[in-house]
């Protein structure tokens, strides 16, 4: 069970939070072209590496926050808990 570093509650089991996905800016709806808007809706970088992403501490403080996580290893740049180097595969 992955521990997600909530800035308020401390590390929490990921199942206590809602995953909000890749953090990306909302284009200005007044000026956005269809391609820009649909890029915001649908296209994702989906990197195998560091990703800025949003989480909602659903069972705890009920705050949205943004963290960086390495999607290849699930390590948080928070800094990580001591000693928790991870392998990507099992």
């Amino acid at each position, binding site marked *: 069970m992955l521990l997600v570093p909530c800035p308020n509650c401390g590390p929490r089991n990921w199942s206590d939070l809602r995953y909000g996905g890749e953090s990306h800016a909302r284009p200005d709806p007044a000026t956005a072209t269809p391609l820009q808007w649909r890029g915001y809706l649908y296209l994702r970088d989906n990197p195998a590496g560091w990703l800025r992403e949003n989480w*909602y501490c659903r069972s705890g403080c009920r705050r949205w926050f943004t963290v960086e996580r390495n999607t290849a290893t699930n390590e948080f740049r928070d800094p990580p808990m001591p000693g928790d180097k991870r*392998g990507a595969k099992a």
Partner: protein
Amino acid sequence: MTMSRLGTARPTEVVDRSSKVRFRWNGKRFSGFEGDTIASALAAAGEHVFSRSMKYHRPRGILTADYWDPNLMVQVGDDPNVRAGHRLLEAGMDVRAQNVWPSLHRDIKALNGLVGRFLTAGFYYKTFMRPAWLWPTYERVLATFAPGGRIDPDTPHRYHDKRYTHPDVVVAGAGPAGIEAALAASAAGARVLLVEHEHAVGGHLRYSSSASARAALAELRAALDASDVEVLTDSTVTGRYEDNWLAIVQRSHPIAVERLIKARAKMLVVAPGLIERPYVFAGNDRPGVITSGAARRLINLWGVRPGERAVVFAANSAGDAAAADLDRVGVEVAAVIDGRDHRRVSAAQGSPKAVEAVLAGGSRIEADLLVVAAGWTAPTSLLNMAGDRPVYDPAAARFFASDPPGNVLVAGGLAGDGSLDELRAHAAATGRLAAQRAAAVAHRLQARTARARPAEGAEPAWAPDERTPLDRDPHPELYRSDTHGMVDFSEDVGSKDLVAAAREGYDSVELAKRYTTATMGPSQGKLETVNTVAAIAEARGETIAEVGTTVWRPPFAPITLGALAGRVFEPVRVSSIQPWHEANGVTTILAGQWVRPDHYGDPAAEVRNVRTNVGLIDVTPLGKLDLRGPDIPKLLNLLYTNKWSKLAVGKVRYGMMCAEDGVVLDDGVTGRLGPDHYLMTTTSSGAGAIWEWVENWLQTERPDWKVHVTPVTTAYVSINVAGPKARELVGRVSEGVDVSPEAFAYMEVRTATVAGVDGCFMWRIGFTGELSFEIHAPAGHGLHVWEALMAAGKDLGVGPFGLEAQRIMRLEKGHFIVGQDTDGLTLGPSTGLSPLIKLDKDDFAGKPELAWATERRLPVIVAIQPDDAGVVPAEASQIVRGETNEILGRITSSRLSPTLGRSICLGQVEPELAAGGTKLTVLLTSGERISATVMDHHAHFDPAGERLRG
């Protein structure tokens, strides 16, 4: 071989010879002693065949005499695949052999062995293709070969509660190293959980004949008893997941059948010892060929003489110890073949109860027991799960950890070799290191967690690993002799199969595993994984290190589904009025987590009563958000498609929410209770999601806005009073509000005292299309308010109505339901509410898509009436083009209207069919096609809304 109970007890024995335990084996009466495993009791009683192999139905006897013994899977009552080498005997047990037909000793499928050379690995991929129509028959025959026990359809899901724990250090394995590590960590101040797979701590010391080993064990046990270490026996650390999240299966618990313990360990010490590996040679799976560990366990733990005359193949000191034990209890040791001198066993053969050992070179030795000590498998499973890739050391002939994460440490035989003292010293250092590191983790956790006791001082440094590494004893690399034999005993896969698979091109470990199914069976590689790799390496002409290993996947030890499931927590919500519903003949329906009244016997009568008198419905699950603050209009303008800036105090407005892709998300009414105080309602099913949606906008996009949102869904009971006599009824029970149409108009909200309960508010809206007052009363008085309304309206004909009646009435009125009449692609304009989509607002959720949607050809929600008033097309009936199969839409809601006496529907249709009067063809589920007409209005009943506004 003939096994029997020794005449005199061994000093290490765990059986209580004074306590007899009776049980049944294949229907016959047997007995053993308290402390016996099923297998030891049967062995002591002279049984030598315990199961039949999967494919060839070869007879199988004891191999390792422990949990991992693949030949000792039995059925105990309704419990299939019980490990007879581990499960303790209990009085009255009904034990049966599995995978035998018709019986253990006369198994007809053993004939498969005769055609074995045609049944090479993967043979089924190459045949049974023609004729194609016969394949289902072949398949049924193949399925009869499925091994394993039987499921009893009446087995209930018994008590299996789980628990969490947060120890500083978990030590997996309570052999001497594990105990020593646990003691050292505990002495250093850590909270330690020591988990032992066997029924008692001590590891190999338990079945060692040496006096010094017994003394060491006594000393360790005494120290453990005196310590604060929590010890779990008959339990296995079976999984290591992210952040040292450990799955521990506790097989013997005073109450639970089997308990899953989920431990968040700050440090994990892996000390499972080593698993003895079988040696591959012809006949290595015959009854009477056993590992040295099995021989020593049988003799020293259960006082069982494993045979009369033994040949011992010893490549290490465990083999020597087995030879000495055999000799000690009077088994004639005919020969010790020393594997360290390049001598090899080549085959085992002979009559069923004899084992004739054939040595490389051809000499033969008559015996009834062949004890094999050919080497070890390092159970690196937990290390694999921690992301480590163990590496093979050819000099020691086993795998070792390469670079596990810092919160996982290794001790005992998995870490290296040495004298007992050396191993204990290394383990103690490991325990101290674990405690030091756990303290650093604990400090960090306390510092980061608001509720925790403040961490004292600076965070301790991450202790470096300064342990002196253990030596590695040289060991001959013994995998296969000069003959072919069994590799995977569970799956009946031999070395020949693996070599053939590699030659055929399945030459990576993973491909060969998949093709032959080696390591895929119940033993999951415990005994066979290294021999599998070795066979492939040999076929490829490479070393084991070059071929690499296979990945051990969780769980390490199998765990029952019952334990994994535990008690299934499925929260349900009920309104305060539920006791009344239950006392009044309700039929409930589960809607999401809510238990709701569906009807009270006759929904059509409930509809008629609402249309003629007055009815009450409990709509408590309606989502309710209390909004406070000066910026609420801005928030509402952002969330809803329509405008909110000018909503006056005391007014209520309907709104629709769309997601950023323009898809309809939710709808409901919001009322203004005070200058900076609003109540928003959402659909019942959307309540939780919309709250998160609102918080997301406020926290991430508009953090500067002053709005506080509080979910108050269950703070109020919500009662809709609907019907022509609703005003009369509400007027009778309320104080502080003028309910006359002049003073309290449609789409207005008032606060009131209802039935003596202060702090209620009510608004005039309704889903049913009737004159309605929706009363929201503090939940702690909800039942009282409901009962007061019921009592006060007796003469008015008041009655309850449920969801079904409401669904009928809303359909009569043509109100769509988000998620039923809309779907995951329904954009705002499809609902027919385009006038409520105000594209001249600056910004709102989904605005760009809704603007562009005006250019798109979208399906439209319309009211539909079948031309035959008596036919109600099932919901999801398709609307098609004439007699073709072209789909033009579908019926999304349908009911027989008690009010109109005819069938009524809502549906989604292509835009060219949306005009009133358009004729449609509806395909009924029966296959019949009927005609239907699109209506001018969504409302089938009272389209002008006169009743509602009355």
